[in-house]
């Protein structure tokens, strides 16, 4: 695929990202502030937080404590999303288990279940931190070789 066409495609994709919100704990409050408040106005970044199902979403924000009981639902959510799909892990709990790292019920990071593209650290992260994570995800999408992705080759991020 010509490089200029790839660039056009990637620019289009990164400014039209429908995000599915998977709020599991207190991080969801910060995610709600980032996505639903005029103060942070996430739609100026081309992120649209209104998909009615994971089947219409381009990426998902896993924000909060992932428990072993929630794990099958998250795997199913990820499988329902259409390719190309991305995951942002928001907060210490979703990154690694966080303060509940040694609990009998908490999964030690959502990356044990599904591949994660961007980790946002914090407990909980500020909305600005989530916005920076979204900018990093957009940068990753901009640099993707979408032709390779469609051929099934490994994704090249330059």
């Amino acid at each position: 695929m010509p490089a200029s066409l790839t660039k056009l495609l990637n620019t289009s994709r990164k400014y039209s990202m429908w995000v599915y919100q998977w709020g599991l704990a207190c991080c969801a409050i910060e995610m709600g502030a980032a996505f639903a408040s005029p103060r942070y106005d996430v739609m100026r970044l081309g992120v649209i937080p209104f998909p009615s199902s994971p089947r219409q979403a381009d990426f998902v924000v896993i924000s909060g404590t992932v428990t072993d009981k929630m794990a099958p639902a998250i795997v199913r959510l990820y499988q329902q999303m259409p390719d190309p799909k991305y995951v942002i892990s928001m907060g210490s709990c979703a990154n690694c288990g966080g303060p509940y790292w040694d609990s009998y019920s908490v999964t030690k990071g959502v990356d044990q279940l599904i591949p994660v593209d961007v980790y946002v650290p914090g407990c909980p992260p500020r909305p600005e931190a989530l916005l920076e994570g979204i900018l990093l995800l957009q940068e990753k999408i901009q640099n993707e070789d979408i032709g390779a992705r469609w051929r099934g080759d490994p994704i090249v991020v330059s």
Partner: protein
Amino acid sequence: MSSAEGTDAPAEADASTDEPEQEAPPRDERREALLESVQAELGDAVVGSHIRPGDDLWVRVTNESWVAAGEAVKHKLGCTYFDFLSVIDWLPSPYGKGEDDPSAPPEDPSPDKGAIKQGYTGGDTRFQMLARLTDLRRHVSVTLKADVPDTLSMPTWVHVFAGANWHEREAHEMFGIGFDGHPDLRHIYLPGEFEGYPMRKDFPLLSRMVKPWPGIVDVEPMPGVEDEADDAAEASA
């Protein structure tokens, strides 16, 4: 309700049915009246009680009369609001506390190391049931307690308070207590294949067995603390 509060008063002294601490100046007539009516209804079934004046009332009953106590307190004494039902495991944790190394034995200098010390109203067993009932008209609550026998089986309260259903399911999965007559004793929170009873004190935190608590490496003094120490060192020098 914690074990630390419970060890303040000797358990044996609290186990008597009449309250020796009621001679103390602060009196709580509402809770004393409720305790008297509980004793009048249940008679010998009451094996212990404790009043914190102006605060709370505990009544321990025999495990045979657990259902009868619930019915009497609900229907005859007007405590119709079922607050919660749960279980206490009084076993001292063999894994220490907090951020201790879980493989090291807990530091307990007391002579009765490892002994089980029940809290208010005393007790004879490692596990104790407790249930809190409230009289919404008189605004007074009572915490009923009972020893769980070694068979780890208690009669169910579902036909007394329908709301006890889920509480007993939680007590069943977290502590491994059986409830005779419960209609649907399945896991309520844990995944179906979960093994063990995580709220028991001897349930191991496997993560800490494999790896020390990673948060402990981040301990650093607060900015002001270090400055004061430096200032003191300079002043003395």
